[in-house]
C-alpha cells in the first residue's frame, strides 16, 4: 500500500517540480530521491510497517512475492534513473513530466503486483499503459516516435478491449470480480468462463508482447526514444508478467490443465519467433527489441508451469533481465551509431563500457556465473517439474542456443573489430562506476541467487 500511494503522490510532486525547476539537471535528483523513498517505504511494508490503513475490501493483498517484485522494480528504476536520467531530460523540454509519468507507471506496477480483483488488474494495467503511450511519442518532432505512439495506443486499446470483454465474461460466469471468490474448478466449466480465460490470456499476451500478439513490439520499441524503450522493455514488461502469473495462479490455477496447452503454444511461438527474428536484425536497438520478445518467452515458462520454482524464477528473471537490459540500453544511448558496426572498437576506446556490456550480454545469453544463468535454470526446472510437454523445454534450450548468436555479435564488434575513432560519446566516471556496480550485481546474483530468493516466503 505504501508504494501505491507514495508513487502516485511522487508523480504529482514531479509535475510541480517541473513548474518550479523547468528542465534543470536537479530534476533528476528529485526523481532519484523519490525512488529511494519508494524503495524504503516498500521495504518498511515488507518488514510489517504500513503507513496507511485503508479498507480495501480484499481487492489488493500484499504478499511477499508482490512486495519483493516491487523492490526489484524500484531498484531497477533507481539504477535506470541514475544511469540514464540525464538522457531522459534530453528527449524534450518537459523532463520533469517524463519522470512524473514514470512514477505513475510505478504506481500501476505496484497495483498489478498485488491485485486480488479483476477490476484492480484492469486499473493497474491501464495506469501502466497510458503514461507509456505518451512516453513513446515524447520525441514529438520525430516521425518514428509519433508512429510508435499511435501504434502502441491502437494496439494497447485493442487488447484492453479484449481484456474488458474477458473480465465481463468471467463476471458473467462466476458472479464475482475476486480471484479467490471465482471458485473455478469447483464447478463445471461453462463456455462463458472458458472464453473469458482465453480472452484474458490473449490480452495479457498482447501486453507482454508474447507471440503471436507481438507485432507492435519491434516498431514501438524501435521508434520510441531509446531511454523510454529501456524502461518499457524491462520494468514494465516484468510487471506485466507478474500480473500474468498472479492472475493465472490465483484465478485459474485449478483449471491449469485446460489452458496449459495454449500457454505452451504461446511460449514456444514467442521463443521461436523472438529468437529467430533477432538473428536477422542489423540494428542493436531493434535486436534488443526482439531479444525482449525472446526473453518474454522464457518468462512465459513461469505462467506455463505455475509452481513455486516458476514463481521464484520469475522474480529472479525480472531482476536479471532488468539489470542487464537497463545496463545495455544505457550503453547503447551513448553510442553514436546503433548498428552492430557502431560498436566496433569499443573495447579499445572505452574498456569499461565494453567489459560491463559483455557481462550484461553474457547474462542475457544465460552463461553461468551471471544472474541470467540461474534465472533460465529456474525456469527450466519449473517447466520440467510439471512433468508435461517436455518438448517445450527442448524448444527453450534450442532457442537459448540461438540467442548466443546475436548477443555475441555485439561482443565480437566490441572486442574483435576495430575502429579508428571512438564509437561512443564521452561518459563520466560516475556513469562507469555505476555500470560496474550493476555488472557486479549481475555476477553476485549469478553466484548466490539465494540473496534475493530467500527473502520470499512462500
Amino acid at each position, binding site marked *: 500500500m505504501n508504494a501505491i500511494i507514495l508513487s502516485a503522490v511522487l508523480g504529482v510532486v514531479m509535475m510541480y517540480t517541473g513548474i518550479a525547476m523547468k528542465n534543470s539537471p536537479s530534476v533528476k535528483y528529485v526523481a532519484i530521491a523519490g525512488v529511494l523513498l519508494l524503495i524504503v517505504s516498500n521495504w518498511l511494508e515488507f518488514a510489517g510497517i504500513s503507513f496507511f490503513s485503508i479498507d480495501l475490501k480484499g481487492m489488493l493483498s500484499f504478499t511477499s512475492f508482490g512486495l519483493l517484485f516491487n523492490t526489484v522494480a524500484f531498484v531497477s528504476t533507481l539504477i535506470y534513473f541514475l544511469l540514464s536520467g540525464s538522457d531522459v531530460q534530453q528527449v524534450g523540454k518537459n523532463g520533469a513530466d517524463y519522470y512524473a509519468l514514470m512514477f505513475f507507471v510505478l504506481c500501476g506496477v505496484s497495483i498489478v503486483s498485488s491485485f486480488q480483483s479483476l477490476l484492480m488488474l484492469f486499473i493497474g494495467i491501464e495506469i501502466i499503459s497510458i503514461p507509456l503511450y505518451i512516453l513513446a511519442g515524447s520525441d514529438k518532432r520525430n516521425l518514428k516516435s509519433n508512429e510508435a505512439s499511435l501504434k502502441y495506443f491502437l494496439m494497447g486499446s485493442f487488447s484492453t478491449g479484449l481484456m474488458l470483454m474477458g473480465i465481463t465474461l468471467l463476471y458473467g460466469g462466476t458472479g464475482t470480480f475476486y480471484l479467490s471468490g471465482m471458485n473455478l474448478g469447483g464447478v463445471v466449466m461453462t463456455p462463458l468462463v472458458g472464453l473469458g480465460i482465453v480472452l484474458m490470456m490473449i490480452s495479457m499476451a498482447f501486453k507482454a508482447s508474447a507471440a503471436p500478439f507481438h507485432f507492435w513490439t519491434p516498431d514501438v520499441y524501435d521508434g520510441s526514444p531509446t531511454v523510454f524503450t529501456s524502461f518499457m522493455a524491462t520494468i514494465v514488461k516484468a510487471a506485466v508478467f507478474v500480473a500474468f502469473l498472479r492472475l493465472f495462479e490465483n484465478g485459474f490455477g485449478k483449471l491449469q490443465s485446460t489452458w496449459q496447452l495454449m500457454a505452451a503454444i504461446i511460449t514456444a511461438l514467442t521463443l521461436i519467433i523472438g529468437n529467430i527474428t533477432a538473428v536477422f536484425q542489423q540494428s542493436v536497438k531493434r535486436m534488443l527489441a526482439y531479444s525482449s520478445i525472446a526473453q518474454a518467452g522464457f518468462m512465459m515458462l513461469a505462467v506455463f508451469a505455475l509452481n513455486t520454482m516458476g514463481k521464484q524464477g520469475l522474480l529472479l528473471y525480472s531482476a536479471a533481465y532488468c539489470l542487464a537490459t537497463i545496463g545495455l540500453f544505457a550503453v547503447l544511448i551513448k553510442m553514436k551509431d546503433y548498428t552492430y558496426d557502431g560498436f566496433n572498437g569499443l573495447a579499445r576506446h572505452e574498456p569499461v563500457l565494453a567489459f560491463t556490456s559483455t557481462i550484461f550480454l553474457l547474462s542475457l545469453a544465460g552463461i553461468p556465473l551471471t544472474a541470467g544463468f540461474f534465472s533460465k535454470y529456474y525456469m527450466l*526446472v519449473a517447466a*520440467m*517439474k510439471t512433468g508435461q510437454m517436455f518438448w517445450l523445454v527442448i524448444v527453450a*534450450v534450442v532457442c537459448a542456443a540461438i540467442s548466443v548468436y546475436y548477443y555475441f555479435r555485439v561482443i565480437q564488434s566490441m*572486442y*574483435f573489430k576495430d575502429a579508428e575513432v571512438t564509437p561512443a560519446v564521452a561518459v563520466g566516471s560516475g556513469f562507469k562506476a555505476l555500470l560496474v556496480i550493476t555488472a557486479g550485481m549481475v555476477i553476485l546474483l549469478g553466484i548466490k541467487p*539465494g540473496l534475493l*530468493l530467500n527473502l520470499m516466503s512462500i
Partner: protein
Amino acid sequence: MFAAFDNFPALLIWLPLIGGLLSFFIKNERSVKAWSLFSSILTLALFAVSLFYTDQKHYALNSVSYVWLPEIGSSFALLLDGMSRILCLLTAVSFPLIFASTYSSSYRNPNAFYGLMLLTQCGLMGVFLAVDALAFYFFWELALIPAYFLVSQWGGERRIQAAFKFFIYTFAGSLFLLIGIIYVYLKTPDQSFSLVSFYQVQLTAGEQGWLFWMFFVAFAIKMPIFPFHTWQPDAYEQSPTAVTMVLSGIMVKMGLFATLRWLIVMFPDAVRQFDNVVIGLSIVGMLYASCVALVQDDLKRLVAYSSIAHIGLMAASVFTLNLLSLQGLLVQMFNHGINIIGLWIVVFLIEKQTGIRKISQLGGLAQKAPALAIMLVIIALANIALPLTNAFVGEFMMFAGLYKFSPWYAAAAGLSIILSAVYTLNMIKNVFYGNLNAVTQGFKEIVLHEGVILAMIVVLIFFVGVYPEPMFNMIRSASEMIIGKFIK
C-alpha cells in the same frame, strides 16, 4: 562461503583463479609473463605436494564440500581422487610447459592474454575436481568462455568465425547437458546435485536411452567424436599456438573425463545398448581423420587431425568397458596431452622462425637444427606409440581391450595406427629432411631454454614409457570402481 584454504582441491582452483585475476592488472609484458609462469609453477608445486597425501588417512585433505545453494540442493563439492588426479596432473604440468615454450612470443594486451589463460586453467581444474553436477556444469562453461576470447582475440585471420563456431557448438551441446542434469536431479531421492546421489538414481531403460544422448552429445562435441568434430580443425588452426596446446592437450580430455565420471556409471543400460554405435562412430572418425591427415599440407591441421584420430581410440575404449582398456585410457589421457603439446611446441618453433607452416614449403631443417630434429622424432614416435615411449603402454592396453570387445573393431582401429605412422613419418621426412630451400636456408638451431623444455618432455616420454607403474597406481582404484559398478 568457499573461503577455506586447508585442502588441495580448493587450492588447485583458487591458485589459478587468483593468479589469473591478478594478471589482468599487470600491464608490463615482461612482468605478466613472469608472473603467469610463476603462478602456474606454484600450482604445479602444490599439486606435487598433494601427491604425498593420497592415502585414505588424509581423505579430508582431498575432499571438500562447501555450502553453496542449499535451497536447490547443490554444494560446492570437490574431490581429488585417482581419476581427477591424473587429469589435474596433466593440467598442472601443461601450463608451465606452455607458458615457458611460448615465452618468446608477444601478444597485444598481454595482461588480458595471460589472465584468460590462467582462468582457463581454473575452469579446467574445476571440471576435473567437481563432484556436484551444478558446480561441474559451471566449470564446464567457465573453461569455455576464456578460451573463446583467447581464440577470437589473438588468433589467425579467420579467428572470429572459427572461435564462434567452436563456441556455438560446445554451448549448444552443454545446454542439452543442462537439461539432462536437471532431469536426473529431479529424480534423485534427496533432490541433490551430488555425485553420490546421481549414482544412486534409478532410471528406466527408456529414460537412460535419451538421457544418455543428452549427456553424450555435449561430451562428444568437446572430444570431438565424428560427426561432431567439424569445429575442431578450424579452431586449432586459427588459435594462437599456446591456446591450441590448451585446447588439444587438455580441453579435449574434458569430454572423455566427463564421460567416465558422469555418464557411464549413471546410465549402465544405455551404455550397453549404444556401445556399438559409439565405438563405431569413434572408429569411423579415426579412419576419416587419419585419411584427411594424410593429405594435409598445413602443419597445424595435420596435428589437429592426428589428434582427432587419437581421441577416437580413447573414446572407443571408454565404451569397451573392461579394466584393461579403462586403465590404458586413463594413463593415455595424460600421455597424449604431453605428446601433443610437444608436437605443438615443435610446430610453434618452426613457425616462429620461418613464418610458414606449409609442409611443402619447408625442408631440410635437420641440417640446420639437428637438436630440434632429434626431439621432434622422439615426440613423433611417441605420438604413434612406439614401444619404450609413454604412449605405448596406454595404446597397447586400449587395443587389447578393444580386441576383447570385438576383433573387427580392433582391426579397423589398427589401420588408423598404420596411417598415423605414415603421415607422421611423411611429415618428418618432408619438413626435416630433403633439400634446403630459400626459406629454410636461414633456419637456426633452437636456443637453450627451448631445448630444455623439449628435453623435459622427452624425459617424461621415456620415463613414463619405461616405468609407468606410479601412474597405474594413481588410477587403479578409480578404474576398478567404475568397472565394479558394471560387474555388480
